[in-house]
């Protein structure tokens, strides 16, 4: 795998992470499904993990950037599995909407595992780390779009969280935005 192909795949991966955040945002804004504290932390974990892909786009593929992705994805998987365990016993309730039979926190766990697997597969290809072929400081159009979109989504989630939770910890079962009351 050439560095250029690796960068394209990283851009696609970052767009995929952005798509997850957009989907969650759309559910929040259009279906009034406010994210719970653990839901917000899972979104934050997507942002923390996706940053590894953004670094690959900006500075070229490096194993250390993939490590950031793995750490973020593992943190997200732990948070998602915690929420799954809270609701795993039948009759103990759920939180939020379901999609194709799985609640969002279950999907989040699946996606974090897929991110770990995808990163492991990417790490199989050593030639992407050939520095002489990497054109750092020259982001392609696709990379720029992915980088900026991801940054805007991270910023949007931060602002949304401020509106929902103000300056403290979020309520366990939020019903409205604290700063919009």
């Amino acid at each position, binding site marked *: 795998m050439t560095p250029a192909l690796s960068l394209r795949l990283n851009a696609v991966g970052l767009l995929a992470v952005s798509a997850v955040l957009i989907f969650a945002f759309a559910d929040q804004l259009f279906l009034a499904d406010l994210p719970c*504290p*653990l839901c*917000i*932390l899972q*979104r*934050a*974990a997507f*942002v*923390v993990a996706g*940053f590894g892909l*953004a*670094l690959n786009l*900006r*500075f070229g593929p490096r194993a250390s950037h993939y490590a*950031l992705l793995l*750490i*973020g994805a593992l*943190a997200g998987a*732990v*948070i998602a599995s*915690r929420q799954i*365990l*809270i609701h*795993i*016993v039948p009759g103990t309730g759920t939180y939020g909407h379901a999609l194709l039979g799985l609640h969002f926190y279950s999907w989040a766990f699946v996606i974090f595992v897929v991110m770990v697997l995808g990163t492991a597969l990417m790490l199989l290809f050593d030639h992407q780390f050939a520095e002489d072929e990497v054109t750092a*400081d020259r982001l392609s159009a696709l990379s720029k779009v992915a*980088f900026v979109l*991801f*940054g805007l989504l*991270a*910023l949007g*989630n*931060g*602002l949304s*969280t*401020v509106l929902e*939770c103000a*300056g*403290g*910890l*979020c309520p366990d079962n939020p019903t409205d935005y604290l700063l919009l009351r």
Partner: protein
Amino acid sequence: MMSIPFFLIVAALAAAWFGHRHASLAFWAAGLLGLLLLFRAHATDVLNLVL
């Protein structure tokens, strides 16, 4: 407070955009630490499970 990880990663992205790799890594590490501390603050209930 729960928005801190998001804003730290935004700062990390901004630092990366302008070519400051080490600064961006520092912001990322702070964001991860914030995420883990917030998780610790929210994962206090005992789970009634047999694993």
